[in-house]
């Protein structure tokens, strides 16, 4: 597969997953209505409202928020001219505006990108990754981060987080109502099978939403790899960078799950997270895909 078909496939899958998320949301609302009638419907806007406020505030200020959460420090061109040279190369290749650049003092090699749109983008590198990588590898990493910016992944993950959050809040509130208030609108009678199905949906929905959210994050990582190749036309650079990351066992100190998805290599211990819930595709799989692009020449 070349990077164009890879990009198209990953975009299609993201849309499919987002639609899946929408369908799941619809199922939960349907279950709420079946089980609680009118009072269930009243909960929906509350849950969506809470999710919207909590996620979109952090989306809008993502560049500043992530700086404080990861302890990254903004740097100027004079602080690291070589890094800025490399970033400018990728900027020219992608046609994107110049992002803000930050450094995280951490010996583990890693990098991330954030910001609500390309004009407010921020890319950050740990001191470890700058020391560990040569020119081509670092160029691949920068291209991967700028690919996240180009694909507006902060927006995509905010949409996924909002829906997953709303589903979680909704199902949490409704299961509580079951225990305390019970069903008040019994006048409709109701089909017992429909009631059981609704109950199962309410209990399983948050889990399914989390899986969908992780699946979206994984697709966006694969897409960013493919887009990075479309910028540099050099899959070998990113591939060998990922090999360096794979062989390095240190992980960044900052291990908050809240920002795990933004790093190029997941900072969470992959053994403790099952594949269904991990935010990144297995690094060996990403290396294999890039190798197949190399053989195309």
């Amino acid at each position, binding site marked *: 597969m070349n990077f164009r078909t890879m990009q198209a496939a990953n975009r299609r899958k993201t849309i499919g997953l987002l639609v899946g998320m929408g369908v799941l949301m619809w199922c939960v609302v349907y279950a709420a209505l079946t089980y609680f009638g009118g009072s269930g419907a009243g909960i929906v806007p509350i849950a969506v409202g809470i999710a919207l406020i909590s996620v979109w505030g952090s989306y809008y200020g993502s560049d500043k928020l992530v700086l404080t959460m990861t302890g990254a420090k903004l740097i100027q061109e004079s602080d690291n001219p070589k890094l800025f*040279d490399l970033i400018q*190369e*990728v900027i*020219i290749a*992608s*046609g994107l505006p110049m992002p803000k650049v930050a450094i995280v003092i951490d010996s583990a090699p890693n990098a991330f990108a954030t910001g609500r749109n390309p004009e407010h983008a921020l890319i950050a590198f740990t001191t470890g990754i700058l020391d560990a990588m040569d020119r081509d590898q670092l160029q691949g990493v920068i291209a991967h981060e700028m690919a996240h910016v180009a694909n507006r992944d902060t927006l995509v993950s905010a949409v996924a987080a909002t829906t997953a959050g709303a589903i979680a809040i909704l199902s949490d509130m409704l299961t509580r109502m079951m225990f305390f208030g019970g069903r008040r609108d019994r006048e409709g009678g109701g089909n017992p099978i429909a009631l059981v199905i609704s109950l199962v949906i309410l209990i399983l929905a948050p889990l399914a939403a989390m899986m969908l959210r992780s699946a979206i994050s994984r697709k966006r990582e694969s897409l960013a790899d493919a887009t990075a190749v479309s*910028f*540099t*036309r*050099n899959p070998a650079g990113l591939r060998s960078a990922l090999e360096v990351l794979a062989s390095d066992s240190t992980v960044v100190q900052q291990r908050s799950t809240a920002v795990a998805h933004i790093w190029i290599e997941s900072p969470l211990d992959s053994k403790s997270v099952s594949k269904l819930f991990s935010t990144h595709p297995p690094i060996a799989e990403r290396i294999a895909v890039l190798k197949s692009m190399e053989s195309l020449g």
Partner: protein
Amino acid sequence: MKTIIVLGVVALIAVFIISQYNRLIRLNITVDEAWAQIEVQLKRRADLIPNLVETVKGYAKHEQSTFDAVVTARAKATTATTVADTAAADGMLTQALRGLLAVAEAYPDLKASTNFLSLQEELSTTENKVAFSRQFYNDNVRELNTAVKTIPSSFFAGFAKVSEREFYEVEDPQDRKAPGVTF
């Protein structure tokens, strides 16, 4: 009722025409910008050369033919105006510079000098920037040319005064980022 439908259809057609027209204009402007970027990067490289040649000369006096090749290619590159001429001169200069760096390999003192090392880094980033600006230009030319040739945007090309643009083709078999053959 009937007039509302007619007005709605007219409005839809107007929106369609405007969006097609704007897309062509936007693509054309992006190609212009991409071209300007190539010129900026070529100029950057040209500005770098005198200093580089002087530095190498200080250590390797007997490589006059290599220096001449670089200087001639630079002169051609700075005077070229059309896309094809610029591309040809650019390819020549890239080759000549590669020859110059190959010469430098034979002089350990030169290779160790800090001045040369910083020039080398600057030259390699500039070469990359030149290559990427070419690639960006060609990608946009490809998109514009596709729009000019395919239906429905092709209907509006004449109206928008947008026509096919020329690819920037550098003849260089060694070029890994060969533009135009990305499939």
